[in-house]
């Protein structure tokens, strides 16, 4: 809706240097997630916030000790695998049980202070039926402020809202990862094989895709839009999209809903004002200390779909020329391993 401002002729958005700054001290950030699965994994990061106008980085704070506890009183320590990063897996044989219906919290001792989260309940997640792909053509402004056509691919999910093993409808959150195939230009020599690389891709990382459990009135979600991206060369030779459907508690939903509002601001008329996002972590001895971050637990279901060029009724060009050529072309088109993060290893679940 922020785009509504464009309705006003000559309305414009441009960068400025805002003189008005509010002095602020760096704050402690404790952020983590316990993901149920086999194995279940716990990841907690401890860091300090940075000035908003600094280049994004994470100032990890090491030296703490972390425990995970459930609502029955069971607890396990979590090792610090790197300064400020705590990680541990719990498999079926572990004494610490991670299962739906239980609530978990974390306790961190750092620099003589004790930080603790409130309990977060783990709900079962429904298993997604399938994913489907759609596309849309839109006119957008390019950087030169000329109107251009741009095509987007969209991902829809089809899923029940009630888990098989629980009557409780959870809030849902979707995260995404992707791998695309990068195909070299066919070599001019018939004796040289044309190679393909596979490139992991961070996708939709600036968006938060969530669903309030009170929103739908049916027990089935059909054609629910969870993500969209511009169509680029990445889908020309196949893009394996992995969707993590996660159950989250009401508390976690509210946190991510607020985070969604503050990270996608456009200054528009109808945009609600930003505010402070309060997580569920506090210092035991001084609850007034403002601690950023959230500790939450999720059950996770994974769905995948391989997006191909033939999913669209128009051609999608690859990055490299599709015919042999002796002309000067990008060197990655002769050697795809030069493409950042690429490898020859075909990921599992890739269905040719």
């Amino acid at each position, binding site marked *: 809706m922020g785009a509504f401002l464009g309705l006003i002729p000559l309305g414009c958005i441009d960068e*400025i240097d805002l003189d008005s700054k509010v002095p602020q001290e760096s704050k402690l950030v404790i952020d983590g997630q316990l993901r149920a699965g086999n194995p279940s994994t716990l990841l907690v990061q401890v860091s300090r916030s940075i000035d908003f106008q600094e280049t994004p980085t994470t100032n990890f704070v090491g030296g703490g000790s972390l425990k995970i506890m459930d609502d029955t009183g069971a607890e396990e320590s979590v090792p610090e695998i790197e300064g400020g990063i705590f990680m541990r897996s719990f498999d079926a044989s572990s004494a610490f049980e991670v299962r739906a219906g239980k609530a978990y919290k974390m306790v961190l001792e750092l620099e003589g202070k004790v930080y603790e989260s409130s309990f977060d309940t783990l709900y079962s997640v429904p298993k997604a039926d399938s994913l489907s792909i759609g596309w849309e053509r839109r006119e957008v402004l390019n950087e030169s402020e000329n109107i251009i056509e741009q095509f987007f691919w969209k991902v829809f999910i089809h899923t029940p809202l009630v888990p098989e093993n629980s009557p409780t409808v959870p809030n849902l959150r979707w995260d995404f990862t992707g791998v695309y195939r990068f195909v070299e230009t066919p070599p001019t020599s018939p004796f040289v094989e044309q190679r393909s690389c596979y490139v992991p891709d961070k996708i939709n990382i600036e968006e938060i895709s969530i669903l309030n459990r009170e929103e739908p009135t049916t027990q089935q979600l059909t054609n629910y839009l969870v993500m969209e991206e511009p169509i680029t060369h990445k889908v020309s030779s196949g893009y394996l999209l992995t969707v993590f459907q996660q159950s989250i508690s009401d508390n976690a939903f509210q946190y991510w809903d607020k985070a969604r509002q503050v990270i996608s601001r456009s200054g528009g008329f109808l945009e*609600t004002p930003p505010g402070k996002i309060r997580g569920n972590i506090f210092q035991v001895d001084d609850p007034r200390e403002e601690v950023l971050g959230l500790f939450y637990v999720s059950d996770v279901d994974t769905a995948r779909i391989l997006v191909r060029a033939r999913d669209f009724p128009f051609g999608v060009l690859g990055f490299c020329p599709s015919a042999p050529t002796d002309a000067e072309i990008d060197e990655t088109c002769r050697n795809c391993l030069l493409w950042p993060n690429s490898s020859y290893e075909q990921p599992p679940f890739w269905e040719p």
Partner: protein
Amino acid sequence: MWKKPTWIFFTCLFLSIHLGFSQNDTLQVSLRIEDQTLEEILDALEQKYPITFLIASQDLPNQTFSYEFFQEPLRKVIAEILSPTEFGAIFYRAYAVVIGPKEEIEQDYSINYYSVLSEELNNKPEPTETQRIAVGKLELLKPDGRAFVTGRVQSRESQKVLESARVSLLESPFQIETNAQGVFQVNLPAGTHTFLIERIGYDSELVPVQVLSDGVLEITLSTKTYELETVVVEAESPEEILGSAQVGITRLSIEKIRKLPSFLGEVDVVRGLLLQPGISTVGEASNGFNVRGGTTDQNLTLQDGAVLFNTSHALGLFSSFNSDLVREVSLYKGNIPAEYGGRIASVLDVKLKTGSYNKWLLNGGIGPVSGRLSLEGPLIKDKTSLLLGLRSSYSDWILRRINNPDINNSSAFFLDGNLKLSHQVNESHQVSLSGYFSEDDFDFAQEFGFSYQSTAATAEWLGRFGPSWRSEFQLGFSQFESTQRDFTGNNASNWTTGVDYIRFKEKLFHSFSEVLAMSIGIEATLYQIAPGSIVPSTPTSLVTAGELEEVEGREAAIFSQIEWEPTPRLKFLGGIRLNSYQYLGPKAEKNFFLPEPRISMNFRINDRMALKGGYSRTSQFINQISQLDSPTPTNVWQLGNAFILPFQAHNSSVGLFRTSINATWESSIELYFRGIDVLYDYRDFAQLVMNPNLEEELVQGTGRAYGLELSIKKNTGSFTGWLSYTLSRTERSVPEINSGDWYPSNFDKTHDISWVSTYQFNRRHSVSMNFTFTTGRPTTIPVGSFQSASGLFIPDYSLRNQARIPDYHRLDLSYTLGRGYKRNRKFDTSWTFSLFNVYSRRNAYSVFFVQEPFRRSQAFRLSILGGIFPALTYNLTMR
């Protein structure tokens, strides 16, 4: 050469005949000229001979001429000099020659015309501002020598208009009574006349008036005898400015607003108000206005007595008042009279014209985004009149041409209409019916849209009973409904809210004596609010259809106000309003009794200076719930109840007012303080749409607003304008926000400066400018960020409103080409060319931050009107 005042120069544009033989025909002149302009030649003749040239144009040719004359008749010399030009001459008696365009010098002029011209030339060679105790201007005198005088009679003490005052001319049998607006009209020969004004309960007045042309005559009657006075043209009299005990009132003449530079050619009442001290807005295209630290919903807006819940079109780009129909705009920003209630900050009282009782008039105008048409005239001559107005936008063609796909796939439309029927029952009674509707509709890029409609109607009966009793009865209703539409996505829906309002009011006025008058009345209001209904608009929408229960409340008030003048220097205005408000559900009923004392006084220090002060208690039972920077018309209205208490405020102000003789200059300094006992702010991330428990999203606190307002105005002469400055703070304290510390409201602007100037070159040409500067409004900005375990960077925001967006300033210019010199009696036309935001400043409406992956975040400003907006508007009046 240009020593003659402009008003004299331009009289000659209307001359069209020669007087025939006159003494200047006998004047023999000798002159040698080499390469001189026409102006220089005429100047040389003036220097050398006892002759005066009256130049009727700013556009004398710049070309040079060479002549040699020896003992030639003046008439011949002038004819030869002017022959290569487009100019002609009229010889007037022995001493004046009028130079003007040839085509303009073709009309017939009456004897009375020349009589008046002669009188002015002989008796007032150099008029000054202080001598302008006349109606109209000589340069506007029509060829037939007659003038149409529109007079208005007011009470000197109360400033109220006086209906049924008898107006007579001593020199003729003419006699008429003022209408409900205190207005009378008379067509009479230009010249000196003596008006006799009589009104029961008031001293009769004999008013000598020098009528020069069409114009306005303001007459005040007093309940005590005093010397003849009252004729003021183009300015409020010192009495009007200094005499009233009413504090903090702003009156705007629609003619002044019309001369201001406008946005896209739309003459805008609200934009005119924003140039007054103490009145501000959140930003461009913001709905409504803020008065002395009040929110937009804390202003009661009345149009002919009907309450309007929305005062703007296109979400605030244009005001919803049709300027062609507006007669008077009054804003009570300080001490609100006891007869008004229901809002804590101000009352904007917009009075529409009454249609003419004796002639038909058609008005219209075309601008780049809208057109307007109005018609007025007698349905039954001198008995029943009609006023009809219509205004509509056609802005889509502009949107189509903007190089932005979202915009050129959008549409915006607004429409408003007014209908007013007035009927003079007899000498003492008048009834009127007034209706209004407006509609806004726009869609953005097939993604979302808005529509909202207002409907209002008022029936009014004004009566006079005996010599000292008057009655005003009003019955009105208004309705406002808005719909917000999401066309696409999982939330595709139509969300509708609305408010209905039925109101009855009866006010009786009684004058006990020359120094004591009282009004008493009763007002009852029924509020009905539809908090919201929502329906999904696409088959795939996840939105569930639902409707919140209708909410009702009623308000009854008794009010009384006394005006008392114990001494000639001291005047009191005291009143009380006793409010009884009842919330009727759907949740628990709740009753409130809220008395509101109001008092103000005027101490007249001397003839040119007065000290005024006042205090009032105000309360408000209906609020617009919004967490946006500026509320939109689609925000829901909420009645006070057991959980959301009525707002209450203490308002006080004191000011020193000064005028010059005849009120040419006017200055004031006012201090004000408003303390708000009860107000509500929203929690962070409040959910206000379709929420049956709004009170859970709101938090209660207190507020305060205080400031200093300075104003200096020049009201008469070729150069008019004003400079106003406001130094103010508007703050809130809510325990749940910013740890309970005082924090600035969204519309707190420390400094607010407006400079408005109009220069009237002559009757036809004028230029205006206004310059505005305000401190940037408060905003909440991110102060830090952190990375979540999932890799997402999340901003950490400051406490509420701890930063400010950049300061706002803007310069606007306009040029008006007024009615032509050729006085066509059927048509008057004018053109206005305006430049809005002359230096294309990109004033920020809001500031927001964007953090892209692996890059430092950057502040962006959103400018609503970020460029220069030229506009050309054509106006037409047809008689």
